[in-house]
């Protein structure tokens, strides 16, 4: 029986637009998100945060707070364990400051009390003595020799000698002879760019409910992209064993990478342990902005050489990223992704990760890639303008294809970049006429996508329905896609399958929901688990028929004898086999554990038309089209949703979103009023075109799609606005004051 092959086939369920299983709960308000759970005797937890960008914590006096009515526990860093590993130590020192407050909003202490007002009063009664230190928030300033040192001795061996102590790691990628390459160019452009830090902007603030007994057994409910990761982090930081802490993921109100780590959970557990009661902590919106994980901000230099007929002969990018007060590795992704779309003989990317007195960065869809590709695609576009070349044709001329040696090392297998470029070229959007003060921009985008540790368990029920158990929070509709893959493989209807996301006790380890990995890796594991169950069901049928198991095949949801020699037995459906499973050996299940590789990269191209108000610098988006390779779109609605959602986040990043710090190092816009995410009236329809170039690494060809779509908007918008306003923009966001100034200086 050809179960192991991944040959092309006609799909029955895959590709349909079925209804998601959590739909009714979410449209009726029944679904339970992080802040929606309560427990008897529950206390309210609240965190005291540093108002200073950089300060030594001289002393913390919690005695007055502890004495207040209703206050049941107060904790500081001293109440947490001492992890050996730097990775966990940094998280510990972020969730509660050790000896320095490293950014405005850094947690310093926390209380648990019987009401919100009691918690508020207690926070105010904690006396912290600070010794102010000089601070630095800008990436280039932080790299200077005389910059205030955020943390000493955090640089790894990659960092060149003589660098500021704030530089913690350094990366180089590339191949070929740059000098020779530039010598061949007819035109060389060298440009510098800046991008501001942005926030994922999930509408649900971080929230958790924690219990931790003196016996070390704990329960934690939280909104997270990875309950297993939370368990690992909390057990290290709180000094408990992983099996003793059961973490359950709530429904999650947006994550985009920002909920792949812990900010409040270890604190809630420590308060729960000390008070002996369940403790609930919910971050305010202001806390989310000040003290969760925004993106890096960047400063970059890009140099590209092109012949007059549009061939890129050499390309170099220097990327400087600040990732806040704790070391991060994000520039490595940026350096790898920057030129991924191009087939280059000579390419080099250099990247520096830098410390500043800002909150530690966290992932935000394709971390590190947007700001790098923004710079590269802007220079490519400007070269096209200067040489009078069509921007799509130039991309096609230089596009990475199967067999291209990527700028970051590997050789590409089947990829969809050319398909997306050709689809864009053929689309009516591309040739539509433009009016006065209007401009069109485009950009390629790319993300690696990941596989990772995955466990799935699939159980057959007596009534012929199937339960799938997986461990990855559903942030985009994945439960539907997982059920669809199980149904497809088993040959039964979608409505016969129920997929649930389970707690850390009920399944082996699962990496977080990130890297666009769930439809790919959990899907793959689900298919394998289904195949295992099918093998068992075939065995049961064989047993009933008295033939060899090898003589049974699975077709259209039923076991069948595999040839005339196998005997004349009518097929047995899954439901029929399940109905008698007690008599043939007992319950039937399949499971699969894997560290999945074979994830396929996803390329995209975005086209956007903008109109600029030359008197005010305001930008209006007239038309937007997203082209992206999904490998195989399991559920087209959810693939489109990822494409549209990422595009709009990128639009916000390009036009109005930014972290604004004052001279005092404090965040000035920690709310949705002045941190300006796109609203419904800012946008037109976002048209989508899905390409399908199957990923050979997945049984159905799936590529992750969740991240790529945030990458192209930055340069697509910048290129469109630059052409509409007739002035090149080199800094994001292109807020109206910046654009008006640039136009007036033209």
């Amino acid at each position, binding site marked *: 029986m050809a179960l192991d092959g991944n040959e092309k086939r006609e799909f029955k369920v895959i590709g349909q637009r079925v209804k998601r299983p959590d739909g009714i709960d979410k449209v009726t308000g029944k679904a339970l998100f992080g802040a929606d759970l309560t427990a008897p005797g529950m206390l309210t937890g609240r965190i005291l945060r540093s108002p200073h960008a950089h300060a030594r914590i001289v002393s913390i006096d919690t005695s007055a707070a502890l004495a207040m009515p209703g206050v049941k526990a107060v904790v500081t860093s001293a109440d947490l364990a001492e992890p050996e590993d730097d990775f966990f130590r940094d998280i510990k020192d972020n969730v509660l400051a050790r000896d320095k407050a490293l950014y405005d909003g850094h947690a310093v202490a926390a209380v648990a009390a019987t009401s919100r007002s009691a918690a508020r009063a207690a926070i105010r009664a904690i006396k912290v003595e600070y010794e102010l230190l000089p601070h630095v928030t800008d990436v280039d300033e932080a790299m200077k020799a005389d910059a205030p040192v955020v943390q000493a001795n955090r640089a790894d061996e990659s960092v060149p000698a003589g660098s500021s102590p704030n530089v913690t790691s350094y990366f180089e990628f590339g191949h070929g002879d740059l000098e020779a390459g530039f010598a061949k160019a007819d035109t060389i452009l060298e440009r510098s760019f800046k991008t501001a830090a942005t926030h994922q902007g999930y509408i649900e603030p971080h929230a958790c409910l924690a219990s931790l007994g003196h016996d070390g057994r704990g329960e934690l409910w939280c909104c997270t992209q990875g309950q297993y990761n939370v368990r690992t982090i909390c057990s290290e930081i709180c000094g408990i064993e992983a099996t003793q802490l059961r973490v359950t993921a709530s429904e999650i109100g947006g994550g985009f990478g920002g909920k792949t780590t812990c900010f409040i959970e270890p604190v809630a557990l420590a308060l729960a342990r000390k008070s002996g009661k369940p403790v609930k902590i919910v971050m305010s919106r202001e806390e989310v902005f000040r003290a969760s994980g925004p993106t890096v901000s960047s400063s970059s230099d890009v140099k590209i050489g092109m012949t007059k007929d549009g061939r890129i002969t050499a390309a170099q990018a220097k990327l400087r990223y600040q990732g806040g007060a704790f070391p991060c590795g994000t520039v490595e992704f940026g350096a790898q992704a920057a030129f991924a779309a191009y087939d280059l003989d000579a390419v080099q990317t250099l990247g520096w990760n830098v410390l500043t007195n800002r909150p530690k960065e966290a992932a935000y869809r394709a971390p590190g890639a947007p700001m790098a590709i923004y710079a590269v695609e802007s220079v490519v576009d400007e070269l096209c303008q200067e040489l009078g070349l069509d921007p799509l044709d130039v991309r096609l001329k230089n596009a990475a294809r199967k067999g291209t040696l990527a700028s970051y090392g590997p050789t590409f297998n089947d990829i969809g970049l050319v398909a997306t470029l050709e689809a864009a070229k053929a689309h009516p959007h591309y040739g539509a006429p433009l009016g006065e003060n209007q401009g069109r921009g485009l950009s390629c985008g790319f993300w690696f996508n990941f596989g990772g540790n995955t466990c799935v368990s699939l159980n057959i029920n007596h009534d012929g329905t199937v339960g799938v158990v997986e461990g990855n929070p559903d942030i985009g509709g994945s439960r539907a896609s997982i059920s669809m893959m199980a149904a497809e493989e088993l040959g039964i209807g979608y409505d016969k399958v129920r997929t649930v996301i389970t707690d850390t006790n009920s399944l082996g380890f699962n990496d977080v929901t990130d890297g666009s990995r769930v439809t790919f890796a959990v899907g793959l594991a689900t298919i394998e688990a289904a195949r295992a169950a099918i093998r068992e069901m075939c065995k049961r049928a064989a047993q009933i028929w008295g033939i060899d198991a090898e003589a049974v095949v699975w077709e259209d949801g039923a076991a069948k004898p595999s040839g005339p020699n196998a005997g004349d037995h009518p097929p047995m459906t899954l439901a029929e086999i399940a109905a008698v499973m007690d008599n043939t050996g007992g319950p039937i299940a399949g499971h699969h554990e894997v560290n999945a590789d074979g994830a396929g990269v996803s390329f995209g191209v975005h086209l956007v038309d903008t109109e600029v108000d030359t008197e005010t*610098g305001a930008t209006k988006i007239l038309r937007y089209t997203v082209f992206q390779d999904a490998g195989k779109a399991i559920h087209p609605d959810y693939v489109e949703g990822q494409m549209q959602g990422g595009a709009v986040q990128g639009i916000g990043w390009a*036009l109005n979103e930014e972290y604004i710090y004052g001279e005092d190092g404090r965040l000035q816009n920690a709310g949705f009023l002045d941190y300006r995410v796109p*609203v419904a*009236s800012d946008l037109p329809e976002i048209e989508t075109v899905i390409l399908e170039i199957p990923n050979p690494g997945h049984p159905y060809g799936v590529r992750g799609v969740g991240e790529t779509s945030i990458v192209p908007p930055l340069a697509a918008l910048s290129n469109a606005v630059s052409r509409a306003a007739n002035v090149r923009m080199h800094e994001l966001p292109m807020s109206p004051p910046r654009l*008006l100034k640039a136009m007036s200086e033209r």
Partner: protein
Amino acid sequence: MKYVKPDSLYAASVLLAEETGTSRILAGGTDVLVQLRSEMVEPDLIVDLKHLDGLRDITAEAGGFRIGAAVSGAEMGEHTDLCAAWPGVVEGVELIGSTQVQGRCTMVGNLCNGSPAADSVPGMVAANAVARIQGPDGKRDCPVLDIPVGPGKTSLAKGEIITSIFLPARPANASDAYLRFIPRTEMDIAVSSAGVNLELDGAGTVTGARVALGAVAPTVRLVEDAGAALIGSRLDDAAIASMVAAVEAACSPIDDKRGTVEFRTKTAGVLAKRAALIAYERAGGTS
């Protein structure tokens, strides 16, 4: 915190006058609750006025309109006659916040919160609106222009409550408009704004003009030179240019996270020009 619903306006003003701690008047609450929640203010006393007689009414009076202090932006937008007579005043109020905020916010609350960027104020000032005030010592009227005295500050004495706004009678061939600059299309605080109120004669010549600016100074600015520049014109380019120059000269904005001095000044001129053209067309003028 004490939450009180007094029986009368007079009782309310006495309560407020006598409160030794911090007090706040509650109409729509769309500023007060934000300040409460972000712990910017911890009132000892909150006085809710919405239930009091007359405060939720829009009444025709002396050819004009009296708008009670608890009338919401949404209610103003639904009043056909008011919208016809004072479209600029109404559109200023309707730009405050979201649809949800509109269901609660009030013109008077917006004025008394004292933000230099308040959306309702330039339109009211251009309209020559008058506030009626109830105090512990009785009632008085005061031009809206004289209410704001600085960011977050009004000229009201302790215990004084604005109970209504009066918009005067309109001659024929008169109308107004309000425009603001924001970086998105909704949901932002005005970076700069302009309210223009025009009166024309039968031939389309401007006989009366008031130009008021928001968010470009510590309080709303009534720019008399800008109005004067339009009088006697039919909004030709020269008159407009002269008005814009007067507007720019009247700006003294700040640099902050929402805009620069340069940007605010420049866009105030642009908005005043565009608002003037809209008001002119609404008033029946054809350029």
